[in-house]
């Protein structure tokens, strides 16, 4: 098959990853438009820009689009594209299954967005759609049904794609590529995909149950029903936070190691830390439910606080890599550093809300909104852009413009902190989240205006990125196979890679940075005194 049909039916992992990534990016722009509409409504107290019902739809669809249709699938897209290349595989395991998963996910996104055309509007009960708020009595209408069905499809598609990545790592590593020689990004992707396989079935199950409940099933009834729904939902909902974090952490780590011209520091500790992170993250879900009175708060406070240990190891490794490195401040490096610095704000605020007594105060306020936007936007999205600037030459064969990239970084850092930092003050002052209008209150108007301007600045940053992509693809600056002196196997092939990934034989794999090994061996040979032939 050739032409467009060949493109959409291709089982090449690079084509699947790219299609998934581009579609996710489209949903990112859509979710961004929803956010701008919400921020416009909140610019001043008692605004009438959108109705209360429309505002409910906007925040629901913003959260759902970003989580189910952008950040998580983009992480999977990066894994599908890069993992086979990094482990020296010629292809993905079960590529047909992966392609079917991609189309299921894509249909899920489209079904979810169809709700906008339904009478009564799109889903409007938040991205977590707590029962009984989301049952058929309290939220009737096709739009909410389409939201539920869309989530089922998207989650099932992502589950299938993640399983293909796990199978690829298990079965298709190149000779020499033992588990502890896999690159840092591959490890983060593997752990993420394992968490998808472990947690996403729960989302599918809870959404099927919710659908039955909405159509007369009476599953989530009474206090126990509400607690059961939240338990089931958050068993998926918390691990997904780390699914949305790890691959971007891996991308930032690769960018830092390559731009510091140094091996990633503390590799074994890093691998152990993300495994501990993953294990712990399956045991913290009820910290979202402290205020319900239906969970054992001390246990979940304990496990949630314990997450600090692996997180600390990752920061320690990042600093260890930078120390003594020959650092080049390319755009990818700057985005990676911004990722670590801004995620720190999200992580540190996480310590506060991991404590039940402080969470009682913060629950349902803008402190929570600030906290998770610092982890997901100021963190993951900056890691994503670090990855884009790092791997764009490999994917397209052209380099993104550095000046435009640095301008984008500057604009986005300013916009992000203008938008999300004032939320801490608003939340501390008691401003509730998920309200379309707020009373005139000293300081609230000004802080909300700053946030709205900040959201516009973020949009400018994203626009700068799109212009950069357009210009760089239109007036191509050829990248060559290895423009950054990369460490891992994807830089040993052509840019973009051929259909079966590698035409030349792979270099020997003796560590998690095989190309760096080669360069160091060459430098050692060059340093050795020339052998004088015996007379």
């Amino acid at each position, binding site marked *: *098959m050739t032409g467009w*049909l*060949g493109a*959409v*039916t*291709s*089982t*090449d992992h690079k084509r699947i990853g790219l299609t998934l990534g581009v579609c996710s990016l489209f949903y990112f722009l859509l979710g961004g438009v929803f956010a701008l509409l919400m921020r416009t409504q909140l610019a001043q107290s008692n605004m009438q820009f959108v109705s209360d019902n429309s505002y409910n739809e906007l925040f629901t669809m913003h959260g759902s689009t970003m989580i189910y249709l952008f950040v998580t699938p983009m992480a999977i897209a990066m894994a599908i594209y890069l993992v086979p290349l990094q482990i020296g595989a*010629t*292809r993905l395991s079960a*590529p*047909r*299954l992966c*392609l*079917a*998963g*991609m*189309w*299921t*996910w*894509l*249909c*899920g996104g*489209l*079904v979810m967005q*169809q709700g906008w055309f*339904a009478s009564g509007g799109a889903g409007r009960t938040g991205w977590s759609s707590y029962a009984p708020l989301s049952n058929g009595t309290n939220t009737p209408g*096709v739009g909410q*049904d*389409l939201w*539920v*069905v869309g989530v*089922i*499809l998207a989650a*099932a*598609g992502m589950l299938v794609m993640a399983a293909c990545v796990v199978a690829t790592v298990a079965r298709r*590593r*190149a*000779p*020499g*590529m*033992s588990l502890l*020689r896999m690159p840092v990004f591959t490890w983060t992707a593997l752990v993420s995909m394992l968490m998808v396989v472990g947690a996403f079935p729960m989302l599918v199950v809870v959404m099927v149950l919710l659908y039955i409940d909405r159509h007369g099933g009476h599953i989530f009834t009474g206090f126990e029903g509400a607690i059961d729904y939240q338990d089931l939902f958050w068993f998926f909902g918390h691990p997904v936070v780390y699914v949305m974090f790890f691959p971007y952490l891996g991308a930032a780590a690769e960018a830092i190691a390559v731009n510091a011209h140094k091996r990633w520091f503390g590799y074994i500790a890093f691998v152990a830390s993300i*495994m*501990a992170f993953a*294990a*712990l993250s399956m*045991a913290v879900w009820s910290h979202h439910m402290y205020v319900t009175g239906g969970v*054992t708060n*001390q*246990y979940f406070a*304990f*496990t949630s606080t*314990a997450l600090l240990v692996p997180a600390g190891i990752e920061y320690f490794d990042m600093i260890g890599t930078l120390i003594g490195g020959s650092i080049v401040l390319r755009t990818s490096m700057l985005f990676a550093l911004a990722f670590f610095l801004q995620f720190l704000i999200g992580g540190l605020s996480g310590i506060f809300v991991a404590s039940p007594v402080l969470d009682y105060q913060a629950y349902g306020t803008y402190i929570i909104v600030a906290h998770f936007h610092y982890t997901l936007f100021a963190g993951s999205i900056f890691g994503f852009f670090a990855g884009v600037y790092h791997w764009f030459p490999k994917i397209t064969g052209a380099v993104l413009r550095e000046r435009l990239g640095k301008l984008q970084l500057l604009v986005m850092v300013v916009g992000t902190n203008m938008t999300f930092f004032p939320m801490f003050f608003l939340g501390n002052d008691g401003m509730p989240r998920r309200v379309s209008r707020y009373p005139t209150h000293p300081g609230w108007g000004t802080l909300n205006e700053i946030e709205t301007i900040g959201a516009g600045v973020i949009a400018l940053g994203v626009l700068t990125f799109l212009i950069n992509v357009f210009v760089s693809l239109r007036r191509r600056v050829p990248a060559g196979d290895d423009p950054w002196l990369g460490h891992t196997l994807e830089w040993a092939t052509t840019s973009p890679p051929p*259909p*079966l990934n590698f035409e030349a034989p792979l270099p020997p*794999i003796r560590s998690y940075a095989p190309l760096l090994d080669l360069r160091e061996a060459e430098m050692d040979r060059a340093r050795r005194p020339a052998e004088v032939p015996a007379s």
Partner: protein
Amino acid sequence: MRGGAIPILAWGTILLVLAVGNWVWNDRVVGSGAASAAVLIIYGFGVAVWLARRREALRRGPPEPRTEPESVPQASLAAVGIGVSAGCALFGLAWAKFLLDFGIALFIVSVGRLVLELRAERASRRAARGESERA
């Protein structure tokens, strides 16, 4: 102890330590039945993996080079059909009812197409193996 048992046993230990730590802190066992069952299941799985370490599937060290010829699918209309049919069927379930029938029909056709694709793939693999044996 190799073959993947270490991380599984470590995971069980982490949960056990957390449960015991919480007991000491809180003076109350947290869901003792559920916590014990979880730890026992994880430990049991870890021990099973450890005992099965000599099996070929749980290999030690890096993978061996592949020698068998394998067919690589370039495109699959069936996979796209299966994905789209799932979308159509569920969309039909929630709203446009006619799409439910269309989705089911498309699913059946796609599975048929998948069977054809897999048979063609098996035939090409057999042919390649025959050629390599003749050579």
